[in-house]
């Protein structure tokens, strides 16, 4: 009878370790796994040993039938094969957003904080990679209205393709909606959505 290994629910690298042990003593085995990462690892391991692998799916389970070629000797291999226990990381996608929720950077001294913020925004022009989106909230919206000392930098950034979202509620609260000089008025739907879709959100 064919040797059967039930590796369902076992944590990585256990399924591969059991597969290896079974292959050391049997020519043909069936390994049952329930996780995608286990399936991948067992299949990859078996193939690396020169085995033939056939695969049957039953509900959430996968039955891997592994046949070892007569000449292959898995017992000569280490007992704990080198296995990656993490699913392949998906490449990071989406824009990088910086949320600027104040007109000063950090807390402690407001005067210093104002200087740091000016310095930060000016720096964004020259650094690589630049954020794709700047979101201005609360006191931060004051940076985007006429009279702001960073207006030229924000215009420069906008010209370089940085999307500048300015919270409309906040402009309204401070009664400076008519003074908006750069970027576009946005709402909480867009702001929340932008943050959640971003690959990275930096809060200033």
């Amino acid at each position: 009878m064919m040797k059967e290994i039930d590796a369902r629910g076992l944590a990585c690298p256990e399924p591969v370790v059991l597969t290896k042990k079974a292959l050391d003593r049997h020519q043909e085995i069936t390994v049952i796994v329930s996780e995608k990462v286990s399936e991948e690892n067992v299949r990859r391991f078996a193939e690396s040993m020169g085995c033939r692998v056939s695969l049957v799916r039953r509900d959430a389970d996968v039955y891997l039938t592994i046949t070892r070629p007569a000449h292959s000797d898995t017992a000569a291999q280490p007992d704990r094969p080198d296995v990656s226990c993490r699913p392949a990381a998906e490449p990071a996608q989406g824009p990088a957003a910086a949320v600027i929720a104040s007109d000063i950077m950090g807390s402690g001294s407001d005067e210093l904080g104002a200087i740091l913020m000016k310095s930060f925004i000016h720096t964004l022009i020259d650094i690589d990679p630049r954020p794709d989106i700047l979101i201005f909230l609360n006191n931060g919206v004051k940076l985007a209205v006429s009279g702001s000392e960073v207006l030229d930098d924000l215009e420069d950034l906008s010209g370089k393709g940085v999307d500048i979202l300015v919270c409309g509620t906040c402009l309204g609260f401070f009664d400076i909606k008519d003074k908006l000089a750069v970027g576009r008025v946005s709402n909480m739907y867009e702001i929340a959505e932008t943050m959640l879709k971003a690959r990275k959100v930096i809060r200033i």
Partner: protein
Amino acid sequence: MSDEGYCVLLFDSVSSTLLAERTLKKKGISHKVIPVPRQISSDCGVCIRFRPELREEIVSTLKGAVEFRDICTL
């Protein structure tokens, strides 16, 4: 680089930069606080950028009020 063609005033401390900024603002002299450009070494991370033609006016305004370390052309 975006700061090309400008001059920068370098200071020994952030507080001197702040004082100079306040003084120039009071006089209405056009300037901008920016991080010290990478190619210039300075203990203080921020400096004041200005148009070269304002150099004389700025130097005389700050004279006796704030000490600065150097003026560089970018």
